[in-house]
């Protein structure tokens, strides 16, 4: 060897035990779907079929909602906050104990690098359960009056980009507030939710408090539209979010929607430039860009444009794309063939509209769904790649001259989930944070999450907040 080349360092998958087929988790037990229909979950890095998963029909969804209702009325709503907290703490500790198993399974099912599932996803999952466990006996201090009440049965539908993390964002506050839940994971990433079902059993959670129904869009629709549901929480595409908003409109159901984004990551000429480059990389290439709050529109001040682009390109040359289970992998697989097609299509549109496409040299594995980190320069606000959410490792670069122009361009989007500001000037950070219409504004960092910090969007990025005290209020009836 004449160069320092890292040897493969794959995490062993022996720690996870993937069954050949999985039923639905209803009333504390795994049950077969009524009509027996199944679908396959695939490892996106190899296209290997991992398991057969039950597809829940309307009847299965009804059983799950009824189980949740019974559990709500007979046990969960009767428990003291302190006792609910005990269960949540127990779940949090089991998640920590089984962290490695969860991380490996998440990477196999989702395609994300083990470095992220191990160091970001799973620790945050445990942190969310710990955080909301602490709230369970303090609901009177959450800001919803002295004695707020849960809604009842929560229907929760989550996406495939952070399967277990989104589960924790949904289930932890719901249970802390005293609701019971029926959760539908995404059809391409159900495995960690089903392992979480086992964790609920291990924790001795009363049957029916958490129910997990697997399936595709129809299952989700049946769940959201079920009349026995009191509260709907959805994270996913804006398109589906709008359908849900329509179906919930005029009913007594409460809803929170966390939808798409097209975040601006704004770099001023006085920014700490090397860290800004890291932040750009983290903003758009974290989790293959499968992040609703990804910094997919880079706005660079013209005076440092050449410098930032040169540094960014050099940095992208060091990104390691490949086997998600390799501990040295920075960018894993695209979650599904369908998503890969969408990323390819939008990238072609970008070229056709006249933007310049660039990717570092990198070899992609032959099997599986892969897309290289990609940067588009010469992008204008009118280009589709600057307006539509691509949900992949594709960055569009625009420029600006003045802070006012940066704000104008950043806000000129139908979305408003997040934004990033890079500058050494504290006063400018505060001014920008007030001007930007986005739920989260990161300053000199990007894609940081914490259970205590509320998260949610403006405009087509949805409504309601998850995380923090605000996330708890979304599951409480009270004077707020």
């Amino acid at each position: 060897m004449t160069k320092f080349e890292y040897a493969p360092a794959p995490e062993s998958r022996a720690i996870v035990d993937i069954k050949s087929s999985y039923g639905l988790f209803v009333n504390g037990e795994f049950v077969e779907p009524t009509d027996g229909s199944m679908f396959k979950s695939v490892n996106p890095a190899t296209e290997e079929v991992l398991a057969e998963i039950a597809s829940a029909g309307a009847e299965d969804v009804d059983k799950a909602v009824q189980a949740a209702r019974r559990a709500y009325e007979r046990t969960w709503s009767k428990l003291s906050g302190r006792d609910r907290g005990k269960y949540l703490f127990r779940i949090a500790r089991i998640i920590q104990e089984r962290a490695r198993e969860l991380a490996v399974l998440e990477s196999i099912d989702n395609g994300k690098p083990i470095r992220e599932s191990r160091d970001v996803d799973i620790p945050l999952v445990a942190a969310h359960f710990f955080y909301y466990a602490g709230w369970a006996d303090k609901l009177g201090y959450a800001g919803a009056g002295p004695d707020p009440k849960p809604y009842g049965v929560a229907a929760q539908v989550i996406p495939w980009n952070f399967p277990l993390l989104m589960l924790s964002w949904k289930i932890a506050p719901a249970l802390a507030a005293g609701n019971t839940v029926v959760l539908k994971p995404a059809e391409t990433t159900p495995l960690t939710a089903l392992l979480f079902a086992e964790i609920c059993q291990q924790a001795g959670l009363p049957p029916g408090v958490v129910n997990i129904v697997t399936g595709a869009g129809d299952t989700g629709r049946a769940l959201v539209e079920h009349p026995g549901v009191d509260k709907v929480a959805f994270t996913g595409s804006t398109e589906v979010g709008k359908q849900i908003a329509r179906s919930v409109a005029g009913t007594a159901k409460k809803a929170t929607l966390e939808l798409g984004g097209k975040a601006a990551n704004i770099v001023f000429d006085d920014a700490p430039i090397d860290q800004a480059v890291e932040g750009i990389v983290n903003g758009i290439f974290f989790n293959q860009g499968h992040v609703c709050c990804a910094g997919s529109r880079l706005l660079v001040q013209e005076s440092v444009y050449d410098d930032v682009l040169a540094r960014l390109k050099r940095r992208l040359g060091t990104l390691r794309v490949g086997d998600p289970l390799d501990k040295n992998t920075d960018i894993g697989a695209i979650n599904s063939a369908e998503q890969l097609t969408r990323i390819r299509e939008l990238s072609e549109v970008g070229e056709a509209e006249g933007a310049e496409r660039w990717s570092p040299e990198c070899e992609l594995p032959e099997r599986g769904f892969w897309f290289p980190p990609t940067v588009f320069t010469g992008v204008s606000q009118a280009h589709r790649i600057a307006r539509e959410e691509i949900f992949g490792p594709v960055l569009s670069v625009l420029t600006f001259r003045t802070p006012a122009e940066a704000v104008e361009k950043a806000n000129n989007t139908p979305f408003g989930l997040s934004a990033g500001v890079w500058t050494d000037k504290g006063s400018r950070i505060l001014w920008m944070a007030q001007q930007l219409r986005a739920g989260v504004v990161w300053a000199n960092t990007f894609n940081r999450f914490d259970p205590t910090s509320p998260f949610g969007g403006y405009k087509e990025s949805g409504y309601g907040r998850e995380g923090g005290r605000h996330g708890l209020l979304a599951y409480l009836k009270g004077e707020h």
Partner: protein
Amino acid sequence: MTTLDDARSSLPDITSSEASLHRFLHGLPGVDQAGAEARAATLATRSIKTTAKQYAIDLAISMIDLTTLEGQDTPGKVRALSAKALRPDPSDRTVPQVAAVCVYPDLVATAVEALGGAHRTVKVASVATGFPSGRTSLAVKEADTRDAVAAGADEVDMVIDRGAFLAGRYGEVFEEIVAVKQAAGDAHLKVILETGELATYDNVRRASWLAMLAGGDFIKTSTGKVAPAATLPVTLVMLEAVRDFREATGRQVGVKPAGGIRTSKDAIKYLVLVNETVGDDWLDPDWFRLGASSLLNDLLMQRQKIATGRYAGPDYFTLD
């Protein structure tokens, strides 16, 4: 704001006056502390195994400045250190030699003699210039340097005047480095920034540029006498500085973290940092060194573990 592009065309202008030097150094992009530390921490999680580990261990050994800098140093100790530098593991001839032995000026001649014919394949480095505090007059620093070089030192490790630097007297620090560089003649000049006393990463970046503008061949983190000594984020900032400096001027400068690097695991983290920040061009003893006194034995122990599958105890490796 003076940009890095300006540096390419106008080096003499930058250093022509205290004011212009000040303007340039304070016009360098800032360093965000949290961001730099997060980046260094991320790189420290790279998993280096099997062939990569073997390669890294030998590379690290070849980059070591085997160092003894104690008041109690004796010629005997320096002779022993030199012998170890030449053949780090007497039982295994495939182990590479270290890059240099690093001693106080009065022991340079002893080291040169002890290395004998092998001197220059293993260099002799000497900490001159009133090491470790540097609080002597320029005349003394120059004389100290000339003494060390006359005694046969190939490399001079000088310390900067942190007092002058922190007071913002950059011109003074600049002139001093220029003068010592001149006194050192053909010897390579390594400029010790003592980053633990510079306190901020912005200062580390400025001091790095100052040392490079003044002609330093290497920039080095620490004397090893101040805590914290070398850290990963400080080294990251210095690596970014040499990378940008080469981009701006075409001249390549080396980097040497020193002090507190004791284990193979630590050493490998530094190599990863080099690999992913500045790349192959710096993964060479000519451009990257590890200043260390106790690191070598751990590298040898790990090396033997890979070869035999078993750990030997510390008694199976020579003390010095």
